[in-house]
Structures are given as structure tokens and as C-alpha cells.
């Protein structure tokens, strides 16, 4: 499906017309397909999904950071208060959330560098898709590398030594 812009603020979606065999009749009189008004839900390609992911991870990190400054501020209350809260971070559930946070930060950081390259590097826009796959590749490698350090403590609690 392709989209067409009329230059006046209206998008339409070009759907291929039915073919001879599908329609059971001769080919559509509109060989280029028919044009219908687009719905409100734009399902784009990789570029749009990476934008959604960048936004979701950015907002997630922001809320985490707010909580994280609050918990660290407990060092001004008492060592015990701080250590009690940190102890709850060493449980399997929170370790898993930590792994999710690492996933969000790594994606946002790597994709952020890609966005910067798209904006400042002359060939950036041309290679944006290749760069996204590079980002995903590096992300996978780093996530595999982070799995043991972040999760092995939780795995020991859950499954024994």
C-alpha cells in the first residue's frame, strides 16, 4: 500500500485494484489502483516504528530517573533507609525490570546516535534504514552481554546455584 500526498494537507492511501483472477472479472479500469481517504492510524515502515520506540523508551527512562533520584536521596536520611530500599532492588522481579531498563536505555542511546547521524551526516537520510538494522544488531549483542551480569543473581535465587 502506498500513500499519496495531494500537497494541500490531505493524504490518501493507494490500494492496488483487484487483479483479474481475484476479481473474477477483467482488470480494474484504474490500473494504478484506487485512491481512498487514509484512516487516522498511520502504519508506517521501520522509520515510524523506531520513532515510536524512541519515544516510549525516552518517556520510560524519564519516569525511572525521577524515582531513581528519590531512592538515592535516601542516603541523606540514613544508611539503613538506603540499604533497605536497595535490598529490594536485588530481588528477581526488580532485576528483570532492571534488564528491561537496560534494554530501553541501550535502544534509546543507539537509536539517538542514529538520529543524530541522520540529521548531521550528509548521507545519513540515505542510510537511515541500514543504520537502524546496525542499531538493532549492536543492541542484540549488548543485551546478550548484559544478560549474565544483570540477571545471574536473580537466576541463582530462582533456580539455585
Amino acid at each position: 500500500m502506498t500513500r499519496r500526498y495531494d500537497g494541500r494537507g490531505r493524504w490518501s492511501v493507494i490500494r492496488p485494484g483487484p487483479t483479474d483472477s481475484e476479481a473474477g472479472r477483467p482488470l480494474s479500469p484504474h490500473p494504478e489502483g484506487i485512491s481512498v481517504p487514509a484512516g487516522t492510524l498511520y502504519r508506517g515502515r521501520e522509520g515510524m516504528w523506531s520513532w515510536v520506540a524512541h519515544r516510549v523508551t525516552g518517556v520510560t527512562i524519564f519516569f525511572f530517573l525521577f524515582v531513581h533520584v528519590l531512592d538515592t536521596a535516601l542516603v541523606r536520611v540514613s544508611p539503613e533507609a538506603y540499604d533497605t530500599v536497595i535490598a529490594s532492588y536485588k530481588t528477581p522481579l526488580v532485576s528483570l525490570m532492571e534488564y528491561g531498563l537496560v534494554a530501553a536505555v541501550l535502544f534509546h542511546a543507539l537509536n539517538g546516535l542514529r538520529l543524530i547521524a541522520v540529521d548531521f551526516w550528509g548521507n545519513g537520510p540515505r542510510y537511515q534504514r541500514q543504520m537502524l538494522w546496525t542499531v538493532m544488531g549492536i543492541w542484540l549483542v549488548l543485551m546478550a552481554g548484559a544478560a549474565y551480569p544483570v540477571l545471574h543473581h536473580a537466576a541463582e535465587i530462582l533456580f539455585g546455584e
Partner: protein
Amino acid sequence: MSVESSVDLTASSAAYGPDNPAPVIEPPRARTKRTPRNRRTNFEMHAWLFMRLSGIVLVVLVIGHLLIQLVLDGGVSRIGFAFVAGRWASPFWQVWDLLMLWLAMIHGTNGMRTVINDYAERDNTRFWLKMLLYTASVFTILLGTLVIFTFDPNIR
């Protein structure tokens, strides 16, 4: 070839003239009485640039932070008051954490401002959401800064 002849007048635009003026199209954001006279500030451009520059610095600060806190010898399992005291004994890590706090908070706040502007359609909602955002951000930055500067390893 003259300019005029290269301009393709469509039937509808050809019909307009001094005697039959084309309809006026309201600009989407018309100026009102409250619009400041001089709107030529570059705030949005500077914000845009800041997102990118702070992003580059944050890659180093945040990834380094995650490596130290979550990955290197033991990860979270060794973090506690004593660990914090050991790190903030060094001005290097104090400056690191301070810079990371300020850059991440300003970057994140500006990002959240964009998100609010995108989704909150009513003027009032948008205004109050942003006020809430700025209040929370100023509070967080001040609290974090205070904690780094007034940390006392011998609190007990």
C-alpha cells in the same frame, strides 16, 4: 520563455483577478493581540540542538554509569551505602553524577515537553501538564544536586 508562460494557470486560479479576488485562507496560527511582537527567537532550534549535543555526552555518562553499577564485578548485589560513600569520596564521580543528572533531566524534560505538545490538544491541559512537568523536574534536579553536594559518609 517568459516566466508567465511557464506558469501553468489552472482553470480555478485563472478565474481570480482584481475584480474577483481569491478567498482569503486563514493562517493556521493567526497572530492575536497576545502574540509578542518579536517572535524571532531561536528557542526551538536551540532545544533541538541541545537534544543532540546532550545525547552524545549522555551516551558516555549513562553507559559508563550502567557498566559500573550493574555490570562490573558483582553488579547491583554490591551496591549499598558504603559503595555510594566510596564513589562520592572522589570529586571525579561527583562531577560525573552531577553532569549526568543535569543533562539527563534537562534532555528528558525537553523530550517530555515535546510529547505533551504532541498529545495534549486542549490549551489548558497542555499548560497544566507542562507546569507539572517543570515543577517535578526542578524539584528532582535540586534534590539530586543537594544530595551529591551534602553527602555525609559519617551520617551515623
